[in-house]
């Protein structure tokens, strides 16, 4: 069983990211479940979403406290929410940022980074003030998480992504290539 926690802001597509990731895992003949933290979603306010992927059916219906992966859709959240909370010792953090690993101040051994915002805006996904980075970030995620290969991520996006499906798929593919860091 692998457990993923997404950190984003209202309007950036964190919840859809968890859904598309789960759909990709199911397409890969795995079992998956995706759910948001049911809070008061406001555009811009911090939002958390979760995804469980496993070989056997997933029956647990509670939040994820010790994730294997943490995905941060907006690096400005680092200053506010403790995104590393409960991350397993060998867990991996994937962060959307245009900066280098060293100067985003994440004290963790396994950190991957990708500039999903620039990629998303390049494909016209969202706006300058509210970029939609979810498809780019799950493209990058498949690079760090072997259980969900890129082909299934693209298949999931082409089937269920909101907005322009091919542009979203292209963003995911480019982000997959652009991931940097050691994890």
């Amino acid at each position: 069983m692998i457990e993923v926690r997404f950190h984003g802001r209202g309007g950036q597509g964190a919840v859809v990211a968890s859904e598309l990731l789960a759909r990709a895992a199911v397409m890969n003949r795995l079992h998956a479940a995706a759910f948001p933290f049911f809070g008061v979603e406001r555009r811009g306010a911090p939002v958390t979403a979760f995804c469980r992927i496993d070989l056997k059916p997933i029956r647990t219906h509670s939040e994820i406290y010790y994730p294997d992966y943490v995905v941060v859709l907006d690096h400005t959240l680092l200053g506010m929410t403790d995104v590393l909370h409960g991350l397993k010792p060998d867990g991996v953090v994937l962060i959307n940022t245009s900066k280098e690993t060293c100067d985003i101040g994440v004290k963790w051994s396994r950190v991957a980074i990708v500039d999903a915002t620039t990629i998303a805006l390049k494909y016209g996904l969202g706006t300058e003030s509210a970029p939609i980075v979810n498809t780019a970030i799950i493209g990058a995620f498949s690079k760090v998480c072997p259980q969900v290969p890129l082909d299934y991520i693209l298949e999931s996006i082409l089937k269920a992504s909101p907005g322009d499906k091919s542009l979203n798929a292209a963003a995911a593919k480019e982000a997959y290539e652009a991931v940097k860091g050691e994890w």
Partner: protein
Amino acid sequence: MPKFTLPKEEYISKGHSGCAGCGATLLARHVLKGLGPRTIINAPACCWSVVQGVWPRAALKVPVIDHAFECTGAVSSGIRAALDIKGIEDVTVVGFAGDGGTVDIGLQALSGAIDRRTDFIYVMYDNEAYMNTGIQRSGCTPLYAWTNTTPGGSSCACNESPKKRIMEMLIENGISYGATVSIAYPEDIVAKVKKAKNIRGTKFIHALSSCPPGWKISPAKSVEVARLATQTGVFPLYEYEDGAFAMSKDIKSRPVEDYLMVQGRYKHLTKEMIAEIQRAVDAGYEALKAKCGKGAGSAV
């Protein structure tokens, strides 16, 4: 010389949870400037109750009593009755609810309160759909507007009925004062709220309150779009008292297209639809001007 055109005191705190650019929060800020501290507000579960923040914090600096969706008018009556029997005077009781919460589910309680001549001000912040639950059509959703329950499709063309004429309904029901206000004209809000405070019986304020996520506009355009509604005659500003109507701002000068086309919820409109809306707006505006012809002067 720089001058303040509005009272400086604030009765709403920073840090509330309104969306960026929320019209209802800006409205409440200026309504409260007109109301002042001796005010008790009751509000149903709606955007506005979420905007006030999460327990143990509250955004307003006046007492608020929360209640279920349909009973704004009833709770206001209860508060006023208790104040009266307890001999507590010069307190303004204010029911503050959204469009759906007023013209749909809350209409019965409001009609009862008016019928009982309950002495309170009812402020309806009209963002033209059920926004708290994620943009579903209400009785105040305009003709042809998109919402998540009027998505349009091969069989239908988004919202298929015009806004409920709530002001006319409540005038017949017996309000002692009615007024329309908009977040684009704060001074007008404050003046009309102050006037309403000094009138006995039920006073109804219909406030246009833009909603960036619901109207599909950028948060930065929130005030500008509300202003366009008045400049195009879609949402005229006027008052009603003792049978007479008075126009507050006779500034209809632009085609409705200017207002409609800056909003994502209207981007599917055809030329015919826009023309139909223009005809309706022109006719409505002329009818209002005719009624204002015979009335008393304006408050502002």
